[in-house]
């Protein structure tokens, strides 16, 4: 008897997915769909939060007041994006504390791109232009993802993301039009960020175990390799405009496919960083743990104050 009921709920779910009807928090959904989403959305949220660290590194050293104000606004946006996403994940039944715990203990992952250091001011430009450019490529299709709260959070994120990419491009353009040293600085940052950015799209399709199911559930709309190819095709002309050389000797226009062929990605590096051995993995987790520990008394005091105020109000009523 039970299996019959279960099946019909699953049928309703599959019908909704097939006819592009969004799944909402209280709707029945397969446990694996829920788990996949909690994993993906919380990883996405963690990436926004950890992503504040490499850029935050340059707030106090931005070259002008204007750049500093812009960078502050951008980093604040990343915090906001993290919060939109955490609350989307919470609608699936996980808690904010649980997600924080998983991040801080190293159990949960975040985008491995944020485990690379920001060595010069040009890195802030390269992150905005490349990393946020790749993020947009990933995120625009997610505005149509099958889970309603995730899709709505992504619409909000995407609206704000294009400022991030443009400010990064503008930093790169300013450097590229500057002195020889400044142009070199831009090229050097580009060299370091190009390959890790291509890795942001995730493992090759044949090595991405979750892709097939996620595509079927319309959580993902394009595969990792499809998005990576689009990104390369979009970025190469922009690099040419800036007068920067893509650090890939195998990069070549392929007339037949109407896109660029590009060199092999060093997947050993990718997996190594994912496993926690990137240049900054330890620093990032340490910084997050420190912030969490040092902020604990503020969170507790605010809660105690709110509880006390509520009791007082009750008494006087």
């Amino acid at each position, binding site marked *: 008897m039970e299996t019959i009921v279960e099946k019909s709920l699953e049928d309703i779910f599959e019908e909704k997915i097939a006819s592009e009807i969004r799944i909402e928090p209280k709707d029945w959904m397969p446990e694996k769909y829920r788990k996949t989403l909690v994993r993906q959305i919380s990883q996405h949220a963690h990436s926004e939060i950890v992503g504040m660290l490499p850029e935050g590194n340059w707030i106090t050293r931005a070259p002008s007041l204007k750049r500093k104000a812009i960078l502050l606004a951008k980093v604040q946006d990343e915090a906001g994006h993290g*919060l*939109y996403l955490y609350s989307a994940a919470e609608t699936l039944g996980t808690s904010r*504390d649980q997600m924080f715990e998983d991040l801080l203990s190293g159990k949960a992952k975040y985008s491995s791109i944020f485990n690379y250091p920001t060595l010069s001011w040009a890195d802030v430009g390269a992150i905005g232009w490349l990393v946020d450019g790749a993020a947009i490529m990933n995120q625009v299709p997610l505005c149509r993802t099958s889970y309603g709260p995730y899709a709505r959070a992504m619409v909000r994120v995407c609206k*704000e993301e294009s400022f991030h990419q443009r400010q990064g491009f503008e930093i790169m353009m300013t450097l590229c039009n500057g002195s020889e040293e400044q142009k070199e600085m831009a090229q050097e940052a580009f060299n370091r960020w190009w390959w890790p950015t291509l890795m942001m799209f995730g493992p090759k399709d044949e090595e991405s175990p979750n892709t097939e199911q996620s595509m079927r559930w319309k959580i993902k709309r394009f595969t990792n390799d499809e998005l990576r190819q689009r990104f390369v095709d979009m970025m190469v002309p922009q690099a040419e405009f800036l007068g920067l050389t893509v650090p890939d000797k195998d990069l070549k226009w392929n007339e037949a496919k109407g896109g660029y062929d590009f060199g092999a990605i060093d997947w050993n590096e990718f997996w190594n960083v994912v496993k926690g051995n990137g240049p900054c993995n330890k620093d990032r987790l340490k910084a997050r743990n420190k912030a969490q520990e040092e902020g604990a008394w503020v969170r*507790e005091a605010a*809660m105690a104050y709110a509880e006390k105020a*509520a009791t007082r109000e009750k008494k006087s009523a």
Partner: protein
Amino acid sequence: MNKKEWPLWEVFIRSKQGLDHKHVGSIHAADAEMAILNARDVYTRRMEGVSIWVVESSHIHASNPEEAGSFFDPANDKVYRHPTFYVVPAEIKNM
């Protein structure tokens, strides 16, 4: 890890004077005052609002999506509630 998580609040924003408040998302805060401040910082960084409502999520009651079919069924067969149900001769103006 803090012992007690701040409660969750649902955030509603009036984007322009004269329009309804609309649900935009949620936020954690210790009390209503902090919820409004946090909502301002998270949901109106680009002048998206002129007024904010917050309500603790635990105070929201919702209809059951699994019963949506039967629950909204009474409205389903009453086409006569729509003006287009009625035939009005072409020569009748202003109706």
